[in-house]
């Protein structure tokens, strides 16, 4: 299985640098006869020594440490650790001024996630990506710059945070730019939905006319106060649900996301009923297992619930929603924990760079179709894992 890396968080110190003429983005190519007029924006990835004449004019040249490269004078040349051997044509990278390499986009991974801000207006008990109070506008600026370099056939891009909509007009700009350069790419935005109480804001978003844009919005309980407790914000439930209504009024696609954790694990059926009554028009509902990382790891005693203890509840909730013609997906649950009636809802959802398996899994006949575990979910292996 290929190891991949997370695009925004992974920094690797460059091993060797001759000189850096600029700090822009490069799209990677392995084709040394690439049209000369385009070469300046491309990094040539050199996996084996070049035969014949040296291809002039590329923005930079990437070598691997193990190939013992001979560097050419006067051009941007970088020697990469062999960890980067997964890099391939059409990936996009960036060198930062402090001599780090960041992989922004990978052609062979879907979805690619853009973490456009670390700021958030909620403070969820189980946040896997704890928010920061920082001015990080440069993050979104960087993505705005990089969008033109992405492959036009990119199937899906996820926009996450923090809370992406906190960026306001910049967020709209991001959607516009994505639609201009990647009109066929599905966009999935992870948002807490609170910003959508402002219909003017949605009107701006709707104006981008993106045909394949979905908002993934968490709804943890049918009980206002339980939802507010989980996101640590009084009034959040009302804002989020109103935001969902507003989005649907503007014909935007909405996915409801419910991370199952101890405080809400007994609410699933009633939440499903609430959705079937009040929000039947949402496009899908995702029930998600807890990823024990970030805040979830720190709060694990208060949050962890054994999946076997909520399976009956989950099954009934899924039945209820399916009956109401609401599409359901189950994320982050190993097949051996789910009753077979729920298998068809299960999605292999853990990003492959985060997926791991237990020893027991090696003899399991369902391993190939099972989502596995979060390698990031520090030692939290649920009860009841067994080979099927």
């Amino acid at each position, binding site marked *: 299985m290929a190891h991949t890396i997370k695009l925004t968080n992974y920094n690797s110190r460059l091993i060797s640098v001759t000189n850096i003429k600029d700090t822009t983005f490069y799209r990677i190519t392995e084709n040394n006869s690439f049209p000369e007029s385009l070469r300046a924006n491309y990094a040539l990835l050199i996996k084996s020594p070049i035969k014949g004449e040296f291809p002039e004019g590329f923005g930079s040249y990437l070598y691997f440490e193990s190939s013992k490269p001979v560097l050419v004078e006067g051009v941007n040349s970088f020697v990469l650790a062999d960890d980067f051997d997964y890099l391939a044509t059409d990936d996009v990278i960036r060198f930062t001024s402090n001599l780090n390499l960041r992989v922004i986009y990978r052609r062979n991974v879907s979805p690619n996630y853009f973490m456009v801000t670390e700021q958030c207006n909620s403070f969820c008990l189980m946040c896997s990506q704890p928010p920061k109070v920082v001015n990080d506008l440069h993050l979104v600026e960087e993505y705005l710059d990089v969008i033109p370099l992405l492959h036009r056939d990119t199937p899906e891009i996820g926009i996450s945070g923090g809370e992406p909509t906190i960026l306001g007009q910049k967020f709209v700009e991001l959607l516009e730019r994505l639609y201009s350069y990647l009109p066929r790419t599905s966009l999935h935005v992870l948002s807490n939905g609170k910003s959508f109480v402002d219909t003017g804001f949605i009107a701006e978003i709707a104006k981008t006319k993106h045909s394949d844009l979905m908002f993934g919005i968490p709804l943890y309980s049918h*009980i*206002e*106060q*339980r939802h507010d407790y989980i996101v640590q914000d009084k009034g959040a439930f009302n804002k989020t649900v109103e935001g969902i209504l507003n989005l649907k009024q503007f014909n935007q696609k909405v996915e409801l996301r419910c991370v199952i954790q101890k405080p809400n694990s007994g609410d699933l059926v009633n939440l499903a009923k609430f959705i*079937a009554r*009040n929000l039947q028009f949402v496009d899908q509902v995702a029930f998600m297992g807890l990823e024990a990382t970030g*805040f979830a790891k720190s709060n694990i005693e208060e949050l962890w619930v054994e999946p076997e203890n909520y399976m009956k509840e989950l099954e009934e909730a899924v*039945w209820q929603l399916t*009956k109401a013609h609401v599409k359901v997906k189950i994320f982050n649950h190993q097949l051996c924990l789910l009753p077979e009636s729920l298998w068809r809802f299960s999605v292999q959802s853990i990003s492959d760079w985060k997926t791991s398996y237990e020893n027991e899994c090696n003899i399991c006949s369902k391993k190939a179709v099972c989502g596995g575990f979060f390698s990031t979910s520090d030692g939290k292996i649920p009860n009841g894992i067994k080979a099927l």
Partner: protein
Amino acid sequence: MALMKRFKSSDNFPVNSEYKLLPIRFTELDNERVVITNMVGEHIVVSQDSLNSLITRSKPLDDSLLAELYSKHIIYDGVSQLPLKLSGLKYRTKIARLKNFTALHMVVTTLRCDYTCHYCQVSRQNLSSDNSQFDMTVETADKVLNLIFKSPAKALKIEFQGGESLLNFDVIKHIVLNAEIRAETEGRNMQYVIATNLSPLNDEILEFCKLYRIYISTSLDGPFKLHNRNRPRPGNNGHQLTVAAIDKVKSHIGIDHISALMTTSGRSLDFSKEIIDEYIKNGLHAIFLRPLSPYGFAVTKGHINRYDTEKWLDFFKESLSYIIEVNKQGYPLIEQYSSLILTKILTARDLGYVDLQSPAGAMISGIIYNYDGDVYASDEARMQAEIGHTEFRLGNVNENTYEEIIGNEFMLDSIEKSFAISSPQCTDCAFLPYCGSDPVYHLATQNDVVGNKQLSGFCKKNIGIFKLLITLLEDSDLHTKRILKSWARY
């Protein structure tokens, strides 16, 4: 270990005990319990005690009950607009069908019939009767079509009735073929139903029904003894013909294209199990338990069919319990009336069943055209006219315009008077969101379109069924609950 210090504990997010009531109604379910509903039909069953505390605030309610009352929009915090918004949305969903106006158009193709059912509500005519006298003519049919297509509904359903509707198959063909052409140019969706005893069924009819995806609705009253006694036919072979024809429809048109209704005659009351078994035997997955309605000749003819509502409810209860048992044994069988009501109780939708609408479903949800071009507000209104009560005759297609018919003064007045929400007793009844107003019924039985609900069989029957279904949803085992919930159509 608790939460990290940076987080607030759940105690900081208490369920708000300062609430205001949203518009609600409540009715006793049994000696201890009360049903509370909100204006869109969400319900909760609580003890008398809890109800008192809820209304008088004499004792604090526990958090889990409070939370449920909030999430079902029975109470709100008095500030947040969201519960009002959601309630409004649900209310609009419930009544969304009104903007389509009349979707169901029933056409009586003939009064002639080969059966001599003792509970028949219309003045059926013998086969030997003069066709020209009791059949709808092509000229009248054209006028009926004009009227049907005046209806603003995008989806139109034409249901052919009799007498025995198929005895005038030529007019059915004429209407379907012409409706198809008009539907094509006007962008309407058509659906056709033929209500028939199936005895005239032949290959030509089957082919035609298949081509136009026509639905067949027939009568099956139970095993052959009961069926043939309820529905006598010369030769005493009605049951045999019906059962054979059901099979033909299944294989030629499709299993989803046949449905059967049973009418509960006085003597049916003792045979609930046998009747249901007959449906299973014939591979039918839905049964509609129908009481005999007190219209037309059904009640004037014979006393055998005068049973009281109590008896009918006992029959219904016994039948339903057997149907649930059958489902548990692995044969899916829906009781249609329960399904209509469970949909009202459990979902945001309303299926628009004519008898359970307010404003009244008569004329608005469905309208009927008699063989002679007379237009009635409902099938029941036509039956009443058979015994001289022609109040709900709205006009005649040969004499009146659509506007004159739909604008019939007596009808409009009856609709306005009979809104359940403003009818005495209905206005205070928890079951109002599930029920309807039936001016035709109440005029027939009490000579008043509103009616005194204390004396109303309609009221007694429906409240009995509402209470039965809600009690089952509360008190049954999980399997039974799952079966009942699965009958709701979202």
